[in-house]
């Protein structure tokens, strides 16, 4: 089985070249950087880190091509986006109210032990909002599959064939960061399936895309929904992990109560911090977090896997 490696952001601490070399890969390496959107073709620096062996799958470019050539798909894509935006707006309203309730309950003095019960119930209400969103999203995907099946698009089919052939030639895949929504959309439309034997190195949005639940977060965003938001399902190569790139820059890590709510909300998952310089290795198909990985635990503190 292959190795999967999640890295910290690569903008200031570039480790992707050394990491890929450590895998002993001798063949070609597929590059997925559709999260960079219209800058996707500015990949010379990334290709350089891969010693010139990188093959860009150009998923964003292909998506633009499909939108231009397949009017039926384009209309369905706009309709899907409109509905998803509306769903996200309602989800945001419900979620923020539910999270605010958790904090309000947690701060209320409890003399007769009602507090902890109320808090757990409030947490469950947050999870219920997440479940509602996930179910609605799944329903939305289902309706799009029914009205504009991707398999029936000749243009998409052609691109899928070419992508599949390129992937077959590659020994490893690197997935860069950028806009996680765009990245996931291109991976989904072109049905990019990572081969079990292919090693994968991913960072930032790319790391998020490898998990099963992609969670958006930014505690310092000036406005909008302050709570972390469930966004979509990822490729699921690393189930049970919520990837949190740029954690130091984007999360209020000293706000233990807030972090605890996040950890308890996604209780089935480990909250993995991916800051500059992080290298988290999953060898031989492993999905368990390795010793040394930094996570947010249920108390809201940062802890290190394997350290008591």
């Amino acid at each position, binding site marked *: 089985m292959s190795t999967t490696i999640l890295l910290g952001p690569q903008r200031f601490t570039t480790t992707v070249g050394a990491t890929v070399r450590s895998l002993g890969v001798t063949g070609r390496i597929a590059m997925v950087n559709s999260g960079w959107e219209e800058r996707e073709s500015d990949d010379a620096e990334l290709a350089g880190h891969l010693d010139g062996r990188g093959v860009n799958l150009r998923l964003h470019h292909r998506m633009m091509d499909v*939108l231009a050539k397949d009017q039926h798909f384009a209309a369905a894509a706009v309709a899907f*986006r*409109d509905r998803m935006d509306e769903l996200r707006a309602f989800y945001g309203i419900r979620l923020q109210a539910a999270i605010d309730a958790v904090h309000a309950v947690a701060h209320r003095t409890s003399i007769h032990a009602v507090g902890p019960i109320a808090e757990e119930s409030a947490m469950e209400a947050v999870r219920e909002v997440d479940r509602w969103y996930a179910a609605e999203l799944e329903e939305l995907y289902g309706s799009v599959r029914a009205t504009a099946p991707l398999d029936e698009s000749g243009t998409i089919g052609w691109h899928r064939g070419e992508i599949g052939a390129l992937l077959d030639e590659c020994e490893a895949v690197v997935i860069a960061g950028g806009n996680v*929504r*765009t990245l996931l959309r291109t991976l989904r439309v072109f049905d990019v399936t990572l081969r079990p034997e292919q090693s994968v190195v991913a960072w930032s*949005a790319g790391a998020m895309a490898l998990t099963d639940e992609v969670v*958006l977060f930014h505690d310092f*965003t000036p406005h*909008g929904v302050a709570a972390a938001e469930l966004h979509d399902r990822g490729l699921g190569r690393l189930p049970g992990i919520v990837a949190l790139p740029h954690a130091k820059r984007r999360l209020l890590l000293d706000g233990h109560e807030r972090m605890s709510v996040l950890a308890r909300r996604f209780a089935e998952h480990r909250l993995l911090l991916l800051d500059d310089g992080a290298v988290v290795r999953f060898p031989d198909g492993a999905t368990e977090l390795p010793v040394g990985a930094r996570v947010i635990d249920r108390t809201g503190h940062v802890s290190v896997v394997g350290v008591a």
Partner: protein
Amino acid sequence: MERLAVNRLRERLPLDGPTIDRFVERYGCPIIEGERATFLYRGNVDEVWVRHRVVGLPDPLPLKRIGESDLWAVTTVLPEGSRVEYQIEIRKGDHYERFNDPLNPRLAHSPMGSSSVCAAIGYRVPDWVAHDPEARPGTLVEEQVHSKALRRDQPVQIYLPARFNRAQRYPLLVVHDGTDYLQFAAMKTVLDNLIHRLDVDPLVAVFVPPRDRLKEYPNHAPHARFIARELVPLLTERLPLIDTPEARCLMGSSFGGIASLSTAVRYPGFFGSLMLQSASLVFTDIGFDHGGGPAFDPVVKFVNRFREKPSAVVDRLFMSCGVYEPLITPNRSMVPVFRHAGMTVRYTESRDGHNWENWRDRLGDGLAWLFPGPQKFVYE
């Protein structure tokens, strides 16, 4: 606290020309020392004043001659972060003259002309105001829109954000005094930068200039009809806009704020949000002696009526006002009225006056609140 530079200069009386030259060259004007500003003027005149419109400071603010020299000075308190626009006024015999401070190269511009700028310690021009070569520019398209309501062709400028794509949908921002916002508040550059930084969602803005501002802006039915029943539907038909109230915002400053609010009042629920900057929310609690002159009569009538029966005409309201402008009290007073009516209000104050750079500096906060950008989606 160290003694003020001008007081140290006074110790060296009598002053000769070269000494004053060196002093002015070294310190410039105004001299900012902690939370104090010293204004200077040089010339053989009978009287000199700083003319400003800062509520709380004497206006005019007289300067005093230093010794027998031709240097005049006055020192005033200027709290951290303040920004004041001013001019110098002189009297020579019976002759009065008013002009920008010849010792201060820093100017601000407005439709009324230019003024000198005194920036206190701690004031910074936001870095999203200047052109950023990395920010992809949006496009401004000039058009004439025929308006039955206004019985004329109305010029507008439509801002399309960088990467404008018909496969996306965009919120709409209607900007009153549109030409002035572009010219004096650098609003195209500001939009380009805030969108590039992911602080603000890509949006379409339509910049609408008035023809007869004092008539059309204070609660004028044809103007409101033009905006709500002609302009917005036309743009919604032609551009990929999000066709919901939440995605429609009206903004304006001063009388433009009244134009925004009164249009929303005439078409409640059609717009989701408002951005009111130093809005002329003048009202009276008893009688009608508002002191604003005849131009404010329709404003006061409108605001008084709204205060009698406040209603939530939009969901969200961003308000800003300078603490040095006379409108600060009515603006502060209206915040609880709007909130009580059921609107979510974000209200900010600044140590600034009734001017375009103040409104420019508040755009970042207001637009990011009204149209939060996609920061949560981007993990580079």
